[in-house]
């Protein structure tokens, strides 16, 4: 499953992620990381069965962990299959199939919301 790990300012200088991985032995597949001196936000993939354990390890060190379980939802009635959403999605959730229809691979979605603003037909929403 995809999770979002937020690291508040006061903890940003601690090696929270590494410590948690070493402690639990659970591998995190980090997909997006935005870290600067004031704040950190990571999107990672983790096995469903290992979620509770890594969550506890991270949260005991001051991180905030949230499950990204409200991926993008497309209203097929509104969608005209233009493909405007394709180029703005950082995770390549959208693609054309061989008939120029739109394929949506929601599993890859990290809920960043970029595509929602792009869609001219208001066909995209988060989590439904």
């Amino acid at each position, binding site marked *: 499953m995809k999770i979002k790990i937020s690291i508040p300012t006061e903890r940003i200088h601690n090696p929270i992620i590494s410590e948690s991985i070493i402690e639990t032995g659970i591998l995190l597949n980090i997909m997006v990381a935005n870290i600067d001196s004031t704040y950190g936000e990571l999107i990672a993939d983790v096995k469903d069965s290992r979620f509770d354990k890594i969550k506890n390890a991270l949260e005991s060190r001051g991180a905030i962990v949230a499950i990204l379980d409200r991926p993008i939802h497309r209203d097929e009635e509104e969608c005209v299959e233009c493909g405007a959403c394709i180029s*703005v999605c950082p995770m390549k959730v959208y693609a054309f199939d061989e*008939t120029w229809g739109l394929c949506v691979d929601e599993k890859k979605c990290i809920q960043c919301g970029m595509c929602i603003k792009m869609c001219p037909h208001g066909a995209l929403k988060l989590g439904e």
Partner: protein
Amino acid sequence: MVEKSVHEINKKIEDGSVNVVTAEEMVGIVENLGVEGAAREVDVVTTGTFGAMCSSGLMLNLGHSEPPIKIQKVWFNNVEAYSGLAAVDAYLGAAQISDTRGIQYGGAHVIEDLLRGKEIDVHATSYGTDCYPRKVLDTTITLNDLNEAVLLNPRNAYQKYAAATNSSKRILNTYMGELLPNFGNVTYSGAGVLSPLSNDPSYETIGMGTRIFMGGAQGYIIGNGTQHSPSGGFGTLMLKGNLKEMNPDYLRAASFTGYGTTLYMGIGIPIPILNEKLAASTAVRDVDIMTSVLDYAVGSRDKPVIKQVNYADLRSGSVQIDGKDVPTSSLSSFKNARKIANELKEWVKHGNFFVSMPVERICCEGSAKSMKQTQAVPLVKDVMSDFIVTIKKNQTVQDAAKKIWENSFNHLAVISDTGELVGILTAWDISKAVAENRFDSVESVMTKKVLTCAPNEPVDLAARRLDRYGVSAMPVIDAQRQVLGIITSDNISKLLARRY
């Protein structure tokens, strides 16, 4: 030499022997049979396009009220329509936005709602006359209640369109969609191989009076579109069709974030293959249709061309810019364009649609002019103050405080030893440094990220930047970063006061 007449082709449509293919299929047919063979075999080629066409609108007639009103201003679901016509006629433009909901809802949405049978609130006002005494009117209507509801679209079915990208460091919200920073994406529009005008670029069969597929109904071309520029391959068409016969599958309202509303129209044009020349032109492929990728970071009419591409490049999913693969997005729907070409093909095949010759040709040469502007556009250098106090970056905070105090000037431009702008210092920065007990060099307390502008930039662009970043002044610098002056929101308000 193959020569057929529209009359002969229509006879074949009538007896069911017509051979009709889509413009996509025609490419392979011409490859296999050659131009002459294809011209002999194929009678009609259908094209299609489905995309944003802002220059669309609805001409409508409400019927007379009791007591009657000569409508001066009218709103449909709070979207204003033009009613400077006879008493109860109005023209509702697709791009007009709602007085209450802004760009979320516009004329295009009213048109789609009407087509979907929804009720629309009408509010109208007037000055009242002896023959039309009424001054205010409120009612609710549906499409059926209108006498006429005719889509009258001044500019549709662009032959092709320039693609868009963005070299700047921020997201741009445009009518070409969301353009990501640092050439993050490219957006484009147009059906390429299926584009109606790209399949008959000499306007042999596409002209005034040509019967077409429009929004799922039969419509007509009534002339060239506005801004028609056939010489550069940017021809356009003016269209007319009865909204009451249309189908919402082929007519969709849309709203572009930060830009406004528009109407997605589905248009299909049949091209009767009268001769080899038409067989050859309908074999046009995506690779044959060239367009430019323009940089929308430049807020000017003439945007720099980043590169030339063809529609095959654009439709491949990415194009190269500066050695990087940049993802592309289509704003028009190729799937729907294809659906339209196929639907029109079925109509012709089953004798439900007959081809026509134009009653008058559309001109196939020439280009649209730019606007004649009699008032010079004010430039930054015309309104900036050339008095600006500078300070060297290694001077002290105290020196800075003194300069501000002596000159009663709020901004100091911080410069290097060679006079290049390196930062800006405000009275506020100084108070902050003092409060924090920091009395080091100017360099350590100044703001390094300075918004600047160039002397030859139009004031409107500078004003938009000041607004967007919420700052009150920007140094004006030349290409060598030498400070020439400063432009403040004060300078701009004075200019505006003169203008209005």
